[in-house]
């Protein structure tokens, strides 16, 4: 169990639980991290997200979505994930190289709005792993993460994540592609998603977030 709190990260695993997570990641290329952010803290962030503005974002050749426009709020979310202890735990689970930082965005896929995601790898630019944290309280239909080996036949591995505050951590590799399936029904999918990267380092990333927040306050 990993919990991100206001004053830091708490983690408690038995040897067996850690071994199970390591095995799941090796076999399926993803693990679930339930209740990754402390519930009271998540509720505070959620209340800010519900009143924030969104803007269209086109990922060339990959997909279309809307992204949270409030740079300060996104910086806060990124601040929470940029934690040395969290990085060390994730390195233990996945066996990845040293994590320098986390960079994420809050996105929403709205049914019937033409939003979609296509197969892509996200590999490169120092990216090691990806994480998607569900920020929706109502269960959405579709919108599942799928992972598949490039050029592989057969069904992809599917990692649905409809519980509020639960996260999916998954592997990035030149040999693996992933996508989010179309969101159906009436409920949009809202998630905080991003990459754990080997570079820049943590202090550089926090400095960047600090500068972003100063620019936002000045504007």
């Amino acid at each position, binding site marked *: 169990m990993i919990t991100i709190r*206001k*004053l830091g990260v708490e983690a408690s695993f038995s040897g067996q639980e850690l071994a199970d997570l390591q095995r799941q990641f090796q076999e399926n290329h993803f693990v679930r991290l339930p209740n990754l952010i402390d519930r009271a803290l998540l509720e505070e962030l959620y209340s800010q997200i519900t009143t924030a503005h969104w803007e269209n974002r086109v990922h060339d050749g990959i997909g279309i979505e809307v992204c949270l426009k409030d740079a300060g*709020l996104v*910086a*806060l979310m990124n*601040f929470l994930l940029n*934690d*040395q202890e969290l990085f060390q735990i994730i390195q233990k689970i996945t066996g990845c190289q040293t994590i320098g930082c986390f960079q994420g965005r809050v996105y929403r896929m709205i049914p019937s709005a033409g939003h979609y995601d296509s197969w892509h790898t996200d590999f490169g630019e120092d990216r090691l792993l990806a994480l998607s944290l569900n920020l929706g309280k109502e269960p959405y239909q579709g919108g599942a993460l799928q992972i598949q080996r490039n050029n592989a036949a057969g069904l992809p591995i599917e990692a649905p994540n409809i519980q509020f505050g639960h996260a999916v951590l998954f592997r990035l590799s030149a040999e693996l592609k992933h996508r989010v399936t179309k969101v159906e029904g009436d409920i949009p999918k809202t998630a905080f998603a991003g990459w754990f990267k080997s570079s820049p380092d943590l202090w550089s990333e926090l400095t960047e977030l*600090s500068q972003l927040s100063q620019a936002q306050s000045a504007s």
Partner: protein
Amino acid sequence: MEKWPTDSRFQVTANTLVKSFDDKIALAHMQTKRFHLLNPTATRIWKSVSSGSSLVELKQQIRQEFDVDPEQLSASIDQILTTLNSENFIEIRS
């Protein structure tokens, strides 16, 4: 700059997010969304403040660690506490 009573004790406000690593500390505020990266002196002060030391205890502790003029050090501490308080990262414990 605020002149704090020597028996003042501070606490971290409920809106403060803290990251500690490699002897460095970064702060973020949930409402103002302002960030603060602490320098070594401010980091030392933060550790004393968050462990519940009073202002007089804090100044005694830091005086033993930093070889600088006591008056200058005291003024620096007051300045840092004033900044942290005005940014709502800390508040006087009631």
